[in-house]
């Protein structure tokens, strides 16, 4: 019960911080947002790390050990 309450407060704080920070971003204000490190896509150098984790942990998607490759070693 205590843990559930703690998670709820953390989630509320997160949403509060994000909500308070909301601003409309104009096209000429995207210098930071357009930086490569701000993109949500997967970093190419981490490709094989993700593959290894898909095999070594149960919480994988379709890929690695579960499909598209044996990963059975």
């Amino acid at each position, binding site marked *: 019960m205590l843990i559930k309450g703690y998670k709820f407060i953390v989630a509320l704080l997160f949403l509060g911080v*994000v909500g308070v*920070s*909301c*601003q*409309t*971003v*104009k*096209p000429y*204000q*995207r*210098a*930071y*947002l357009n*930086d490569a*490190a*701000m*993109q*949500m896509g997967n970093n*190419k*150098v*981490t*490709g*094989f*790390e993700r*593959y*290894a*984790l898909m*095999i*070594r*942990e*149960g*919480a*994988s*998607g*379709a*890929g690695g*050990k*579960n*499909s*598209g*490759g*044996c990963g*059975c*070693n």
Partner: protein
Amino acid sequence: MKQTGSLIFLIMVSLAVKAQQDSVFTKKLLKSTQIDLLFSYYQQDGNHSAVTGGEGTEKLNVYLNKLLVTYAIDSFNTVMLEGGVDVISSASTDNIDMVVSSASAKDNRLWISAGYQHLLKNKRQILGGKPSFSIESDYLSWGFNGWWNSSNLNKDWRYGISAQLFADDLRWGRLNEDFKRPVTVVYPVELRDSVWFDIYMRYSYNFTFDLQHDINRRMTVGVFPGLTFQQGLLSTPFHRFYFRGANDAVVENLPRQRVKVPLGARLNSFIGARTIMQLYYRYYWDSFGINAHTIRLETPIKLLPQLTFTPFIRYYSQRGTKYFFPYKTADPTEDYFTSDYDLSDFSSVKLGAGIKLLIIRSDFFKQINFRYAYYKRSDGLYFNQLSSYFSMAGGGY
């Protein structure tokens, strides 16, 4: 007053001339090629191999190589070709071969995929598709990945969906010189007098969605729900399992269907002018009874405009499947059982660092990356992984 009038007249004339020049421009197609090379060395050890029933070495070395060529035909159309060869040396999979037996089994994984991506004329929607093919001595997989991405007019809301389909054949023999065709599912060497499974195919259907929003000029967030459905032979046929009190092994057995539901969230934010915080959380649930939480923090620091140093840490906690039993602890009445510690209760920590160098004074090399990761699992398994990535421009016009 007269001078001001002359100035206005001159500005108007120059603008008119400029407008005329602009109206006769010809559209130029921008062709370009990008070549990406990725190398990685993976070294693992542990003492809970599923091949030997949950006890035994998990020593493993893998060399991974990948080549990706991306060719932009014009501003709207891109084709891509990628492939790789993994060289695997594994102590635990000795005898996972119908013909030879060696002190340390070696295997290769070859894979290739080719894709096409189209940017629609409104420049806000992307459609793409990529078939794939992968082969190992005991495995062949056909796959297809399709995706659609879009954004609003301001590009501060972005959304997308992707679907992956895989059809995997778990029969051995294609890479063996004597057979060169699929022969049989490979069981542990002492259990090959029985047919344990009457199926050899595994089908996977994977859907991922993403929704991203720019909160302000320094912060962006994304949520990534997913859904995966699998059916067919979901256990690995050469994993041994020992029931309580038994000296003889049986083959691991898992249900023929599995549903997986992951939900990821990410927040990227600039802190100051040189440091970026990348925070990631993922929750996972599946019908085997696995629940997992992942949290990861990466902080790229721009030491110089061309040089970025990225330390990272990742914590993972997993509640294992109800079908997992350690060596010789399961009751023989169980229908489904495995001693694969990848599906057990555990937590893990991964940490390391990467360095990225942008090369400005070269027409060929564009970017060089190196990254090291150390991973430790609470059951004792660990791995070291060293990766390098090189991005090159193959010329454009």
